[in-house]
């Protein structure tokens, strides 16, 4: 894993703490203006990392430096949350129920010493930028979930934070509202221009919003890189699932033979030697009722474990010599009569199998 050079005016942090049964120890870096997407399974330490950056959870060791300023070094410095320039937004919008939408947004500027009138002016501008000018006087219970999320975003940004922390900001919304709020969020984040740490378990959020992705599993960073790099070369089974590729840990040789660690073998035209990862895109897996003739050199007779429909295509889970997911058209599901428990032939062209060093 490569680290970018130390960010002098950005974010540089190593967060080590224990919460519940998870020992978290992760390094995070961000350049000014960068949006970092943090992904990972639930309970892996994503939220703990965010709360530590906000100063809500203390570090056991490590450091947090933002914009050239030391925020926390255990035993030496520990800025309280109100002394850090952060904005925090969680899945639950957590608006103050006793205050109107406007006063919720003005709460930050007021707390940081702005006069009432100036704070309200700022709040009006923020509400306008999320399209809620008409809702300023409403109490949180009168707002829809999507509106509440936008007020929460406006509130987090009204203090001009150096670092904006978003923990699953869209998770509590229904799918339709989520799609709309996601595009609002993208627009607002572009205009904001500060650093953002965005925690999510929705790959779409991460891929559309983030400049760089960091995967945290069991309290450790397991992979980090640009969305393009991650999509091309996933390096853990979890990341493989997120980007939707069949991923195998294997041994490769110079002639393109790939021996998988769990048994089974692949042939590839993209040979790498030694310990490798091998990927097979689900869309490259062809299914047949009878043993295929001709070019494909990767052929297996596998049992169907599950079939799920997604619009016009279907994902077919297969197991046997090798475990893989195939993505086929709805038409071929009907034509082949694919049923769970059936045995089918699966084939993959050697040109579709990619390998890269582990």
């Amino acid at each position, binding site marked *: 894993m490569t680290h970018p050079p130390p960010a002098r005016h950005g974010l540089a942090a190593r967060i080590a703490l224990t919460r519940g049964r998870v020992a978290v120890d992760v390094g995070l870096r961000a350049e000014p203006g960068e949006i970092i997407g943090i992904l990972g399974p639930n309970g892996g330490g994503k939220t703990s990392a965010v709360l530590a950056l906000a100063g809500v959870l203390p570090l056991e060791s490590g450091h947090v430096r933002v914009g050239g300023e030391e925020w926390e070094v255990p035993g030496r410095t520990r800025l309280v949350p109100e002394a850090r320039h952060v*904005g925090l937004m969680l899945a639950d919008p*957590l608006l103050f129920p006793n205050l109107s939408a406007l006063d919720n947004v003005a709460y*930050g500027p007021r707390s940081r010493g702005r006069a009432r009138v100036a704070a309200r002016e700022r709040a009006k501008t923020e509400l306008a930028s999320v399209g809620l000018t008409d809702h300023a006087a409403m109490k949180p219970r009168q707002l829809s979930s999507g509106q509440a999320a936008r007020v929460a975003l406006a509130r987090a940004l009204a203090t001009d934070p150096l670092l904006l922390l978003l923990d699953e900001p869209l998770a509590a919304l229904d799918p339709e509202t989520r799609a709309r709020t996601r595009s609002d969020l993208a627009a607002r984040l572009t205009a904001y221009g500060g650093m953002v740490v965005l925690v999510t378990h929705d790959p779409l959020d991460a891929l559309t919003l983030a400049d760089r992705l960091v995967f945290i599993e069991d309290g450790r960073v397991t992979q980090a890189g640009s969305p393009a790099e991650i999509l091309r070369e996933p390096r853990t089974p979890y990341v493989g699932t997120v980007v939707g590729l069949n991923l195998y840990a294997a041994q490769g040789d110079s002639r393109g033979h790939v021996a998988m660690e769990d048994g089974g073998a692949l042939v590839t035209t993209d040979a790498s030697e030694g310990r490798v990862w091998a990927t097979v895109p689900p869309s490259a897996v062809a299914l047949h009722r009878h043993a295929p003739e001709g070019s494909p050199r990767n052929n297996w007779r596998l049992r169907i474990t599950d079939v799920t429909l997604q619009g016009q295509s279907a994902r077919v889970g297969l197991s046997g010599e090798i475990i893989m997911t195939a993505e086929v058209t709805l038409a071929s599901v009907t034509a082949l009569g694919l049923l769970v428990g059936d045995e089918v032939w699966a084939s993959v062209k050697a040109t579709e199998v990619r390998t890269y060093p582990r």
Partner: protein
Amino acid sequence: MRWRSRIVLGVPAAIGVLLLLVPLAALLLRADWTRVIPDLGSDIAGPALRLSLLTTTTSAVLCLLLGTPLAWLLARSEHPAMRWLRALLTVPLVLPPVVGGVALLMTWGRNGLIGQYLEGFGIQITFTTVAVVLAETFVSLPFYVLAVEGSMRGLDERLESVARTLGASDLRYLRTVALPLVLPGIASGLALAWARALGEFGATITFAGNFPGRTQTAPLAVYVGLQHDLQIAISISIALLAVSVIVLGLLRGRWIR
């Protein structure tokens, strides 16, 4: 089967209801209603009711000023010492009031833990109105603290995390968000504490004595009235009953559904 369960459960339940309601009815039935209003203005009842009003209100204000910060600290701290403190605070709640009166005497009395030093300054607490207020606060503060602490514990802790990242100190968060949100809890805690102070008898008569106009509160006046004029005792009792019902009405919808 149905009729059996009705008898097994219904009969004790009905006896319970009668046990509670018949005495109230008896009080109302035996009252000489033409005398109630004049009695309340009499030499025994008038000063006693005024004293009760003064002392219970003072004690309610003390609960508000001392009990609210205490409840906040109890609600937020996870420190083991705070758990012990909470357990200790419930002791006065279950303590027989007379025992509380003796304990107060041992503290503020002439030879008491603190009273012996006050004596040097010519300050005497026992048998004064101040003693009445102390006795009432002693019995009602735990009610207030536990009620308010309960509603403070109901607050989402993450609200405070968000407020602090917005630049609010914990005191500002308390003032602008937490207190407004627990206001209903504070109101019901106050009503509960005030009602408890109003009924205070044991600790008051032990620690403050029974001096008309100075330490003789309404419950004490009822006790005195019983000895020579039953009807005036009934009249004051009805006044206290009416006040209790009003407090109950204020609490309705929060504690009683």
